[in-house]
């Protein structure tokens, strides 16, 4: 009985890691597609969202079944709670990825503003690295690592703020580019929110290890900085 419980927990944990690395890859790929105007990849990212949604639901249902049938306690219970929350965060990060893919298709073949093309991949890479480390912290039960990741969000926010400023300046000079600028801002915002979501993952890792849930993100950019 206990053995099959442990095996099932391990399976769910492994599924989180697999989903997580797919989401990581898609963060990089959708951003590259966005700045390179690669519609094929953008479409693939949008299409991939369906499967992520289904896997999230499956993980959630399996976790509920475990709770109902095994009455897990203490550390086991916290692990299951973390699994259910983290899978939700992964699913939402992928929604942002899908969002960027859709915006990319809307823009069509027009090249994106050069400053975006130059710096958005760095923003995505930082968000991807944050996600990678938060999942590593999860897999290794590494509370210290989970506590360190949120500071990386400063870099994402910094790039976001500067790119946002550049988009505003671009509109000032090119009022007819407002639609393009709007699209860019949405895409940047999606990326910025993805990074925030990785902080939520870290919060659940800390909870899982210590039993204490502590808010680590400031939720700074729930609305555009200059709106």
């Amino acid at each position, binding site marked *: 009985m206990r053995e099959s419980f442990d095996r099932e927990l391990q399976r769910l944990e492994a599924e989180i890691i697999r989903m997580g690395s797919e989401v990581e890859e898609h963060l990089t790929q959708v951003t590259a597609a966005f700045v390179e105007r690669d519609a094929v990849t953008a479409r693939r990212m949008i299409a991939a969202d369906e499967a992520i949604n289904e896997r999230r639901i499956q993980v959630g249902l399996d976790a509920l079944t475990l709770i109902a049938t095994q009455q897990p306690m203490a550390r086991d219970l916290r692990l299951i709670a973390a699994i259910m929350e983290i899978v939700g965060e992964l699913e939402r990060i992928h929604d942002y990825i899908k969002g960027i893919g859709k915006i990319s298709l809307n823009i069509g073949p027009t090249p994106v503003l*050069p400053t975006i093309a130059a*710096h958005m991949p760095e923003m995505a890479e930082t968000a991807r690295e944050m996600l990678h480390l938060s999942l590593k912290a999860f897999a290794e039960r590494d509370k210290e690592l989970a506590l360190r990741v949120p500071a990386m969000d400063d870099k994402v926010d910094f790039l976001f*703020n*500067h790119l946002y400023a*550049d988009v505003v*300046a671009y509109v000032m000079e090119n009022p007819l580019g407002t639609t393009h600028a709007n699209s860019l801002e949405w895409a940047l915002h999606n990326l910025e929110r993805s990074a925030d979501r990785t902080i939520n993952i870290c919060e659940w890792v800390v909870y899982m290890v210590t039993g204490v849930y502590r808010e680590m993100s400031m939720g700074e950019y729930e609305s555009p900085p200059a709106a």
Partner: protein
Amino acid sequence: MSNVATYSTNGGPYAIEAQDLSIYYGSFRAVKNINLRFPTHKITALIGPSGCGKSTVLRAFNRMNDLIPISRAEGVILFHGKNIYDHDVDPVEIRRRVGMVFQKPNPFPKTIYENVAWGARINGFKGSKTDMDALVEESLRDAAVWDDVKDKLNQSGLSLSGGQQQRLCIARAIATRPEIILMDEPASALDPISTLRIEELIQELKKNYTILIVTHNMQQAARASDYTAFFNMDADRAGYLVEYNQTDELFTSPKNEMTEQYITGRFG
């Protein structure tokens, strides 16, 4: 967010200052070693032959060059004692406090009212509708276009004449309450009458703002500015500052032979 405000030294003699400023596009150095400071509430004209880097220098003062990823600034631009290129400076804040008017009038395809309100809103204005109405009117008045548009605030900004459009764009820049206004050949797309009206307006604006204006029109520089900076291109194609002085001095007794040749139309 920006640390610029902390360094505020209101009423200082210079509104902004470049120290040993060089600007590159990739490996090409477009301007080099510029040292220049701009007296508060004065008009300074930047003149020089085409391609010598006037626009490049001008756009450095509110970090518009950030939009060009291959461009890079070396040196310092001091604004209230703070280098605007420091890592912790917020470019939104800089561009609000150092406004810009472009060569071609570029109103938004929106109403006259919205054109002015948008400028304020995107830079963080959060007042009521009444406050906004007041700000729009005041900005349009300051830009000397209120009488032309007061009865048609809901018409498109694009329905105006070229000269009116440019004054609308100046109103849009004023609406963010900047300290400095950068103007890159603001009258070059306009007829002579509209050009004169813009020049008169600029004279009015200096009561409240420090103005940096790029112009290729020597008469305009001589008529409309207090100080003039003459740039030229070196053998390596990098622009540099040849001479800076009060406008009347520079145009009557230039110190440099190159300035003399340029203002008398002998090259460029």
